[in-house]
């Protein structure tokens, strides 16, 4: 546990002592504002809710969060610090979890900075606050899944650019599986059952249910499992270095 906390603190420090976290939070807030107000038509809808705000989260996270996670392992490999970390008597899980949780904290901070929007809808009307809390919770869990994907890709390479591109690609595939156009394409080829199964693997589908204020345990389980699976891949990729 001490190793985990030490890694977590150092990683968090490296985010706040370099422009990475600030740029991420600032650009994310700008982009989510632009999407919510301009493209989502927040005021034109004349509804006191944040559905138009949450709807863009999967698409923005898909691009922004790999930028946060791309350095987690790639930079350690490039600088040679990975060798130092792996010759310390700390378990690999502590390294993997410490780094992941630091990146997740940065994502959580970005979400916290959107709370003024929540306050605004409460001033403008009487929103379903339980649905908004559910939306935030789902958004936080989804961020974890995207970061875990990014962490795994970062562990595979010493290039941050390659890690970013791979993570965006996988995140896009897992998100887009839920689009109607994908189901419409798959159904005639492989049947409705397969199309339905493919759609159930989509981040988008699980997130949309939560946006409507429905807490589905299977969605919580889905996001946690997806995160655990990619953190497991990270662990394997990091440990595989011992084999040379």
């Amino acid at each position, binding site marked *: 546990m*001490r*190793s985990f*906390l030490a890694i977590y603190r150092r990683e968090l420090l*490296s985010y706040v002592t*370099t422009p990475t976290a600030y740029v991420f939070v600032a650009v994310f807030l700008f982009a989510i504002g632009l999407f919510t107000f301009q493209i989502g038509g927040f005021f034109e809808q004349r509804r006191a809710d944040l559905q138009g705000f949450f709807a863009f989260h999967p698409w923005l996270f898909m691009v922004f969060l790999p930028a946060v996670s791309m350095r987690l392992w790639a930079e350690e490999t490039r600088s040679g*610090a990975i060798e130092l970390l792996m*010759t310390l*008597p*700390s378990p690999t899980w502590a390294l993997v979890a410490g780094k992941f949780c630091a990146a997740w904290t940065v994502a959580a901070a970005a979400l916290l900075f959107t709370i003024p929007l929540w306050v605004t809808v409460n001033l403008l009307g009487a929103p379903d606050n339980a649905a908004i809390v559910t939306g935030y919770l789902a958004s936080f869990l989804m961020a974890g899944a995207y970061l875990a994907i990014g962490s795994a890709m970062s562990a595979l390479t010493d290039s941050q650019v390659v890690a970013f591109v791979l993570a965006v690609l996988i995140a896009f595939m897992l998100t887009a599986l839920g689009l109607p156009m994908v189901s419409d394409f798959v159904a005639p080829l492989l049947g409705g059952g397969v199309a339905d199964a493919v759609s159930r693997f989509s981040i988008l589908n699980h997130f949309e249910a939560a946006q409507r204020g429905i807490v589905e345990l299977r969605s919580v389980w889905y996001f946690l499992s997806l995160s655990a699976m990619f953190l497991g891949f990270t662990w394997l990729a990091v440990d595989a270095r*011992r084999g040379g």
Partner: protein
Amino acid sequence: MLLEVDGLKKRFGKRVAVDGVSFSLDVGEILGFLGPNGAGKTTTMRILAGYLEPDEGACKVFNIDVLEERGRAQTRIGYLPEGNPLYGEMTPWAYLRFIAETRGMRKDEARTAVRRAAQDARLGDAIERPIETLSKGYRRRVGLAAALLPEPMLLILDEPTDGLDPNQREAVRDLIRRLGQERAIILSTHSLEEVAAVCTRAIVINEGRIVADGPPAKLAEGHADGLEGAFKALTGGQERVA
């Protein structure tokens, strides 16, 4: 014996990097690992430090198998990797605290260990300055201090004086001599002068195999240009591609 290495073998694809390396080491010995580039020095040291797993063979530190009980063995080993990777944005104090706590030390233990290691490595006032602003010599001392944090009985130093100017080199050598009085040290180097000046014993490794093992003066015997002549004769004066 503090360290026992038995029949280490390591391949990278078709290339045999380490081919049946065996030796043992006791407290008070400073062992210089000599060899041309690509001879297998760094790979051997990485295996001893628990970073790489060998394909065959075993190594034990105080009878603890580095492969079977890696974490336990690593608590007794201090390691300075090749290139001395550090986090430049941190101060040595913060960096050493981070390493100590990642090693599992409690906060008070970590503080004490950092003070002691900084003193042993003679970091002085540099301890509060960002690492990226320090000279190469002081950065090397930070790396050495990190390796000294657990009060290891075995120190593994991969090219500890590489890239240092003569003054910095001499300072690091003094440090190694002093540290070697109460522990075992393995250091790899390209400098024959360094081996002669610091080491009590030298192992020459070529194409993954140990080709000579003994005190530097004894290895130099019978060669007109001393240790350099011995090195050339033992390694065939050839350069490896990788």
